[in-house]
C-alpha cells in the first residue's frame, strides 16, 4: 500500500478549525492507516483506489467532510481559454495515442507542496498508471513554454537537456544512461520513433512517459503550471488528470482549459457523473434504517452530492472519484459518511446448520489415533526445496513442479511427498531426547491435468531400536482403528529405503504407499545417529470418503 508523509500543522491549516487529536482520530475512518507518527510528522498508508489521498490537499478534503466542516461535492472550476492549444500528430497513435492537460495559475508553491506533488505523481504513475504504461503525468512551469504545443514523435537521436541534467542527451542516451530511462524505456518497445511534446519554438517540453525537459522544472518561484497526461487510452488519461486538477485547485490554483485537436484527441471533459441507488439497498446492506435525508447528509460528508427521487437517491460524483463504479460503491460512501464507528454489530439467529467437511473430520480422527500411538504431529511447508525433497533422499526428481522467481531458496518446488520433510525435522532435532516419533498429513502435488492434489499420510520413528516390525505395527493399527481397513506389505526396493527392509503397502491388491527402514546413507546425510523407520501412504484414492 502506498504511503504519504504529512504534517499535522499543515493539515490543520488546510482543514480549518480542528485539533491534532481530531485529525488523528478521524483518519482511520477515511480508510487511512496511521503507519507511524513523529511529533508533527505522520506517515499514512492509503488505498491505491483513492489516489486523491496521495497528498495532504486530498486528505484535507476528506477530513473536512467527515468532521462536518465542509461537505458536498468539490466542483472543478475550469475557465475556458483559447490560449493553450495542443496539436496532435497522427504518428503518435501507434505508440502512445492520447494526450490531455490543464493549466493551473496563480498558486503558491513551497517546498512541502513540491514534495507532495512529486509523491502524488509517483503514486499515480505506479498505481492507476500501471508503472506509467497506461498513463503518465508531466508537471511544468507554464511560463517557460510557448504555446501552441505539438504532441508528435521523434527519432532516437533527438537531443534535449532532460530534468536533473546539465547537458544535452539524445533519446538513446537517456534510455541507456538514466535511471528512469532504464526503468521505463521498455514501454516504448523497439520502435524507432518515440513520443515527444514540443513547444512553438520546437523546444522540447517532455519526452513521455520517461522524463520532462529541464527547462520547465517547477521550483518555489513557479506561479503557473501546465500539466500534461499522456496514455494509451483517453479515459485513463483523463482520470489521472482529474486527480491532479482537483488537488491543484484545492492547493489554491485557478484552472484554465487547454484546447486539444488532431488524431482523435480532444480537450478533456472532466465531467461529473450521476448514479442512482435505491435507499432500501443501502439500508439492507448496512443493516440500518436510515431516512433519505440521513443518507443524503452521509453522502455529502463523503464529499459527494445527492438528492432524492422517490425511493432512489441520485448521486453526483466528481470526476476524480473514478473508483465509484455503481450503486454498491455508494453504499460504502453512505457507510463512511455515517461513520463506521456508529455501526453497532448485531447477531441474527443463524438459520443454517454448520458442518465440518467430512475429509477434515476423518483427518482429525487419524490425528487422534496417531497421538494414541505416541506420535507427535509435525507441520511442514508444501512449498519446499530440491535439497529436502530430492537431493538428501535420493528420490527421482524428473517430475518436479517449480514456482517462478521465488524470493526464498528454501521454497521453490511443490512437494510430491511428505516423508522427506519429516526426515529434515529429525535432522534438526538430533540433540533432543529419543525416541522421536512424528507424523504429518497433508497435500502432495503431482503433474496431472495440469496438477493433481492428494492427501498423504506419513509417519517416522527414530531411536536406537527402531525397526521394520515396529513401524508396520503402527501403520497397521492406525489404519485398522482409524478406518477399519487391513493392509499387507510386499517386498520392493526403493532408493530411500534400505534393501531388504522395504515394502510396498497394499490395500485390496492396490499399492497405496511405501514402508521401511531409511537407508543408512540418507540417515548419514542428515547426521542422524539412530536408525529411522517410516512410511508414507496416499489417503485420497481409497481411504478417505467424501461423504460420511
Amino acid at each position, binding site marked *: 500500500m502506498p504511503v504519504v508523509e504529512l504534517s499535522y500543522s499543515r493539515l490543520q491549516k488546510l482543514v480549518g478549525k480542528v485539533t491534532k487529536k481530531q485529525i488523528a482520530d478521524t483518519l*482511520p*475512518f*477515511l*480508510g487511512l492507516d496511521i503507519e507511524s507518527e513523529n511529533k508533527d510528522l505522520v506517515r499514512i498508508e492509503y*488505498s491505491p*483506489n483513492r489516489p486523491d489521498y496521495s497528498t495532504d490537499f486530498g486528505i484535507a478534503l476528506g477530513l473536512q467532510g467527515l468532521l462536518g466542516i465542509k461537505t458536498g461535492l468539490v466542483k472543478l472550476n475550469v475557465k475556458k481559454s483559447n490560449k493553450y492549444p495542443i496539436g496532435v500528430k497522427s504518428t503518435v497513435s501507434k505508440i502512445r495515442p492520447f494526450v490531455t492537460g490543464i493549466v493551473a495559475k496563480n498558486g503558491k508553491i513551497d517546498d512541502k507542496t513540491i514534495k507532495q506533488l512529486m509523491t502524488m505523481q509517483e503514486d499515480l504513475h505506479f*498505481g492507476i498508471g*500501471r508503472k506509467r*504504461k*497506461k498513463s503518465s503525468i508531466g508537471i511544468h512551469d507554464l511560463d517557460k513554454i510557448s504555446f501552441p504545443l505539438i504532441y508528435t514523435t521523434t527519432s532516437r537521436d533527438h537531443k534535449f537537456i532532460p530534468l536533473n541534467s546539465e547537458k544535452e542527451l539524445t533519446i538513446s542516451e537517456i534510455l541507456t544512461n538514466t535511471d528512469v530511462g532504464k526503468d521505463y524505456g521498455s514501454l516504448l518497445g523497439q520502435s524507432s520513433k518515440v513520443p515527444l511534446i514540443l513547444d512553438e519554438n520546437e523546444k522540447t517540453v517532455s519526452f513521455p512517459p520517461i522524463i520532462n525537459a529541464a527547462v520547465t522544472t517547477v521550483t518555489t518561484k513557479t506561479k503557473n503550471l501546465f500539466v500534461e497526461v499522456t496514455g494509451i*487510452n483517453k479515459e485513463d488519461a483523463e482520470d489521472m488528470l482529474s486527480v491532479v486538477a482537483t488537488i491543484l485547485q484545492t492547493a489554491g490554483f485557478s484552472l484554465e482549459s487547454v484546447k486539444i485537436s488532431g488524431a482523435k484527441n480532444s480537450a478533456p471533459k472532466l465531467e461529473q457523473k450521476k448514479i442512482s441507488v435505491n435507499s432500501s439497498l443501502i439500508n*439492507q*446492506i448496512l443493516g*440500518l434504517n436510515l431516512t433519505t435525508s440521513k443518507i443524503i447528509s452521509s453522502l455529502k460528508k463523503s464529499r459527494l452530492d445527492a438528492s432524492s427521487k422517490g425511493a432512489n437517491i441520485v448521486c453526483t460524483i466528481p470526476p476524480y472519484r473514478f473508483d465509484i*463504479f*455503481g*450503486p*454498491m*460503491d455508494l*453504499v*460504502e460512501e453512505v*457507510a463512511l459518511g455515517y461513520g*463506521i*464507528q456508529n455501526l453497532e*454489530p*448485531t*447477531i*441474527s439467529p*443463524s*438459520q*443454517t446448520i454448520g*458442518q*465440518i*467437511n467430512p475429509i477434515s473430520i476423518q483427518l482429525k480422527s487419524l*490425528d487422534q489415533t*496417531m*497421538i*494414541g*500411538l505416541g506420535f*507427535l*504431529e*509435525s*507441520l*511442514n*511447508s*508444501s*512449498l519446499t526445496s530440491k535439497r529436502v525433497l530430492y537431493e538428501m533422499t535420493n528420490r527421482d526428481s524428473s517430475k518436479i513442479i517449480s*514456482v517462478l*522467481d*521465488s*524470493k*526464498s531458496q528454501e521454497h521453490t518446488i511443490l512437494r510430491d511427498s511428505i516423508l522427506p520433510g519429516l526426515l529434515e525435522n529429525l535432522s534438526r*532435532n538430533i540433540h533432543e*531426547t529419543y525416541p522421536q516419533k512424528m507424523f504429518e498429513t497433508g*497435500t502432495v*502435488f503431482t*503433474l496431472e491435468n*495440469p*496438477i493433481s*492434489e492428494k492427501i498423504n499420510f506419513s509417519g517416522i520413528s527414530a531411536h536406537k531400536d527402531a525397526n521394520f516390525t515396529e513401524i508396520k505395527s503402527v501403520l497397521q493399527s492406525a489404519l485398522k482403528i482409524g478406518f477399519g481397513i487391513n493392509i499387507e506389505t510386499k517386498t520392493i526396493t526403493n532408493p530411500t529405503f534400505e534393501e531388504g527392509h522395504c515394502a510396498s503397502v497394499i490395500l485390496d491388491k492396490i499399492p497405496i504407499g511405501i514402508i521401511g527402514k531409511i537407508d543408512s546413507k540418507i540417515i548419514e546425510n542428515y547426521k542422524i545417529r539412530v536408525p529411522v523407520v517410516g512410511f508414507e501412504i496416499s489417503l485420497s484414492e481409497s481411504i478417505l470418503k467424501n461423504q460420511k
Partner: protein
Amino acid sequence: MSQVFHEIEKKIITSLRDNPKQSPETLEKSTQLSPDQIRRGIEWLRLKDLAVVTESKSSTISLGKNGIESFQKGLPERKLLDLLKSGPKKLSDLQKELGFVFGPSMGLARKNNWVEAISDQVSIKNPPSELPGEKTLNLIGENKISKDKVDLNDLSSLLKRPDFIIEDIIKSKEISLSDSAKSIILSDSSGEIDVEAKVPEIFVARTHPLKDTIDEIREIFVTLGFSEILGNMTQSSFWNFDSLFTPQDHPARELQDTFYLEKINAKKIGTPEQIRKVSESHKKNWRYQWDINEARKMVLRTHTTCVTIKHLAETKPDEARIFSLGRVFRNEKVSYKHLVEFNQIEGVVVGKDASLRNLMGIQREFYKRIGITKIKFWPTFFPYTEPSLQTMVYNEKLGKWIELFGMGIFRPEVTKPLGINKPVLAWGGGIERIAMLKYDLDDVREFYNNNLDWLRSTTKCQ
C-alpha cells in the same frame, strides 16, 4: 517433617550410617541389593539432596608381553652390561649375541655413559647398580597394582617401550550421606512411597499447536452455523484473480507477489459463459484487452477466496453460510513476521441476513470466543469487496491495535458475471497471526520449525 522412604533408600541410608563412605559395589554387598536397585536408590537420594556422590578416577598398571619378558630375563641393556662384565668385546660379537635389541640398548648405554666404544671395542664404563625401570619392573612383576604405588619417574622410562606397561583407568564412585540425611528418622512402616519426590519428565504425543488453533477456529465457525468446503491450493489465475475483479495488469498479479507455476497452464478454467461474462466485466470497467492466456496461468492461491467464489458460482445459493480454511501463498522474503505459506480462513454469508452489521456481529462473536473483546472496525479497501472493513484488535502485550480479519460485501462486478444474484458477505484472514497471540510468539517461523523442545514443552491453549 517426616519423610517416606522406599525400602531401597532405607537400606542404603542404614548402611551408610554404619560405614560412611562406600562404593556402589560395597553397598551391594552390605545391603544385599542388586546393582540396579543400588543405582536407582542412589539417584533418588541424590535428587532429594540426601546423598552425595563423589566420582574419582584411579589407574592400575600391569606388564605387557615385552614387560613380562624383561621381568623374567632382564632388560636388553642389562643383558648388554652382563656380556661386558667379563671384559671388552667386539661390536660385531655383541650384535650377534643380542640380535635386534642391540641397536637401542647400545644407544641407551652410550648416551648414559654406562659403556664406552673405542674403534670396534666396547667396554663397561660407569653403570649404576640398578638400571632405570628395573625397580618398577620388579615391583609389578606379574601382578596388577595401583599406579599410586609406583615411582612415576622410574615408570616413565618403561612407558615409551612398546607393549611394556598396560594402564587401566577405573572410574569409581563414592557415596556418602549429606548433612541433612544425618538427622532423618527412618520409620519402620513399609508399603508407603515418597509421594513428594520429583519424577522424571515424559513427553506427550500431541497435535501441532498451530493445528490446535486451526481446529479451534474451524469449530467456532461451525457452531456459528458455517459449513466447511475444501479446494485446491493450485488454482488458475482465472479463479484466483479474474473472477475476483482483479485486473490482469494489477500489481498484485506480478511475479514478485504471486507464485506462478513454471510452464503450467490450466486447460479448462470455467464455463464459456463464466469466461465471457468475467472478461466483459473487466473490459468494460477496467478498459483493457482481457487475455484468456493470462487467466490460464496456474498460481499457488494467494487467498482461499478463490475456493469460495468457485463454490458460489457452481451452487448459486439463496441462503448459505460457508467457509474454507487452508494454506495460501505469497512470494515474500521469509522473516519473523512473514511466511511464504500460511493458513487462512475465509467465509461467506449469502441471504436475507446478509448485512454489514451482521457481518460485524459474526466477527465480534468469533473474537469473543477466542478471548479477544477489545475490537473495533475501520474502513479499508479490497479489490473485490465494497464496502470493505478491517477488524482492529487491541493487543495488551504490544500496547497497540493490530489488524486481524478483513471483511466486506462482494462487488456486483464479482458476483453478477458468475450468476450470483444475492448479496454475499465475505470475511477472512490469517490464522498464524491469531496463533502467535495465543502462544505468545514473536516469530511466526516457530510454527514450522518443528523444534521438538518447543513442541514437547508448549502448553496447549484452550
